[in-house]
């Protein structure tokens, strides 16, 4: 009753091709948008800074990996390093051009990441599946090594870490640095993530996105039908790395504030991969679900276990959280291998025919 598209006739092609063709979806998105804007005014700084901002950033990174793995079918374990490329190039850019608005620099730094991604994507033209995962591991460890061994990247800082300098924009608003308000950072991240996600949504439902999916489903057949594997695969690597790079730059500039090379280790790559798999391969909304789940679960466990009377040390809670995450990943893979996005669409189906069992 609440969610039913019957009776909504589309009379123009524009209406037919809209991102959200169903009225209820538009209303739902508007409500989510309002909530996203209202959150900073009711939530604490901790909630914004430790949960919402990183959640949005990681969701963007998950979308990036989803483009590559979910849409184009190329397994990658180098997401963390590509995020690192974005972070380090943004750091260098803001060192060289301190007066340019940091948001513009964040968006530009993704381009560097995209370039590196294309280079490491070249082997994908010959190598497939698990074998490709190893070449992306090469990217992961090689780039990580670069972050440590090339002092120019971190401005010859003796600690080897990058410290985010204070940057202002939009008049005199402090955007980055230790004294930036969590609310400002949240809104910046929200804006970037929304804009980029909309752009990606349009890419994946357009010509390029359909080519990626053809390559994923069967590359030889796609090639025979006139899809160029070179452009399709490399564009997937480029877009994916661009998104990861932007996410990585924001991760440092709007969340961590300072980073050592170990921030972009293989652990991060795995974390993002989990988000994509649990959220659902080939689903943008799934990337958000996955990010919320993987990022939120340990926080909930850490806060929740002591709250329900299981009083144990902080370290033990951390170990148990790792254990539970692992077990839950296996559980979800068994119960729903297509991820949370599939549960979401099943729920929508149910809602559509409600109150009848089928429609």
């Amino acid at each position, binding site marked *: 009753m609440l969610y039913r598209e019957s009776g909504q006739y589309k009379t123009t092609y524009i209406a037919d091709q809209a991102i959200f063709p169903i009225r209820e979806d538009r209303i739902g998105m508007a409500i989510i948008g309002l909530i996203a804007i209202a959150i900073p005014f009711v939530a604490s700084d901790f909630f914004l800074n430790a949960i919402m901002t990183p959640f949005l950033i990681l969701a963007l990174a998950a979308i990036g990996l989803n483009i590559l793995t979910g849409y184009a079918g190329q397994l990658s374990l180098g997401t963390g390093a590509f995020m690192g490329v974005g972070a380090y190039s943004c750091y260098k850019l803001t060192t060289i051009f301190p007066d340019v608005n940091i948001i513009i620099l964040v968006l530009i730094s993704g381009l560097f990441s995209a370039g590196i991604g294309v280079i490491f994507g070249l082997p994908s033209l010959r190598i497939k599946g698990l074998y490709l995962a190893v070449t992306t591991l090469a990217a992961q460890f090689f780039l990580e*090594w670069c972050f440590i061994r090339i002092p120019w990247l971190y401005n010859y800082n003796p600690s080897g870490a990058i410290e985010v300098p204070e940057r202002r924009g939009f008049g005199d608003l402090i955007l980055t640095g230790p004294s930036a308000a969590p609310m400002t950072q949240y809104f910046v991240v929200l804006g970037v993530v929304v804009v980029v996600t909309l752009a990606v949504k349009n890419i994946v439902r357009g010509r390029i996105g359909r080519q990626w999916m053809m390559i994923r489903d069967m590359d030889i057949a796609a090639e025979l039908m006139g899809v160029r594997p070179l452009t399709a695969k490399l564009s997937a690597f480029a877009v994916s790395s661009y998104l990861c790079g932007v996410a990585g730059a924001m991760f440092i500039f709007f969340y961590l504030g300072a980073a050592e090379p170990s921030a972009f280790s293989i652990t991060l790559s795995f974390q993002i991969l989990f988000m994509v798999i649990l959220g659902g391969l080939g689903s943008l909304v799934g990337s958000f679900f996955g990010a919320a789940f993987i990022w939120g679960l340990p926080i909930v466990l850490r806060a929740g276990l002591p709250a329900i009377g299981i009083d144990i040390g902080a370290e033990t809670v951390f170990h148990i959280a790792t254990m539970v995450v692992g077990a839950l990943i*296996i559980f979800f893979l068994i119960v729903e291998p297509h991820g949370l996005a599939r549960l979401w669409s099943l729920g929508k189906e149910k809602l559509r025919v409600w109150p009848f069992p089928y429609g």
Partner: protein
Amino acid sequence: MDFLHSILVDPFVQMVELPDFFLQVLWEGFVAGVLYALIALGFVLIFKASGVFNFAQGIMVVFAGLTLVGLHEKGVPAYLALVLTIGVMGLLALAVERFVMRPLVNQPDIILLMSTIGLTYFLVGFGEFVFGGEPKQMITEELGLPTGSTAFEIGDGGLLILQHIDIAAAVIALIMVGVLAVFFNKTRIGRALRAVADDHQAALSVGISLNQIWAIVWFAAGIVALTTGIMWGARSDVSFALEIIALKALPVLILGGFTSIPGAIVGGLIIGIGEKIGEIYWGPLVGGGIESWLAYMIALIFLLFRPQGLFGERIIERV
């Protein structure tokens, strides 16, 4: 020109000038290669029988080592602890088969891969929860493994030092490969394993129990993991850092092919030796530390020319 000279000529001059040092490097690389090969062996066993790329092999190594040391710390005699650890690995194999593999049968490769990464997380958390996160000393002497070292003189005054534990590791690895080869080729279960590896459905239809075979294969991988854990633990500590080293098994597998036991051995040796030589002779040119990625680069370049690995089955694609 100087730069080219330092890449193409100088390292070889160094090798010839100090042959004892070169041999030492070779030996170090060889031992590291044996251990990579052992980890890769665990991967191959499971991949052959179930098509699952078992990411958890690395953490199984750590887990087996920790269990052994942890039991000994609790006061269990070393050999009894060894037997008990084998029992624990058996239980683990049964649990993995029952709770992970069986429900996930026939899922796409990437889902199975993810489930083993989930298993990795679970075992990391479980291991840290039970045994604590700090590195532990392997009980080398209590297990009767040799500890000393022998020095050989080479040429005029050069020294080659071989640790006894390394020799033992190489010998044990060799025995293990031999036993596995006999097991695969001569025993009833071994033949069943190969049948399952060839074709799940055909194996099922001639009355081979997939569940049983998978439990056995995970148990075998557990034993290999335990051996690796002891050997590696004796060289350094038993710690969770080993997990990253286990990722090195991936390029080894790439070189050797995912389904070949001899491939795992040869690939392990190539990676181990190549990486040590690269690190010692070419590493200083770019600031050192290239060990962390050299193996992957070697595998990457190799793959471009031979996508199925040295001994892997040829990939035939049909539309």
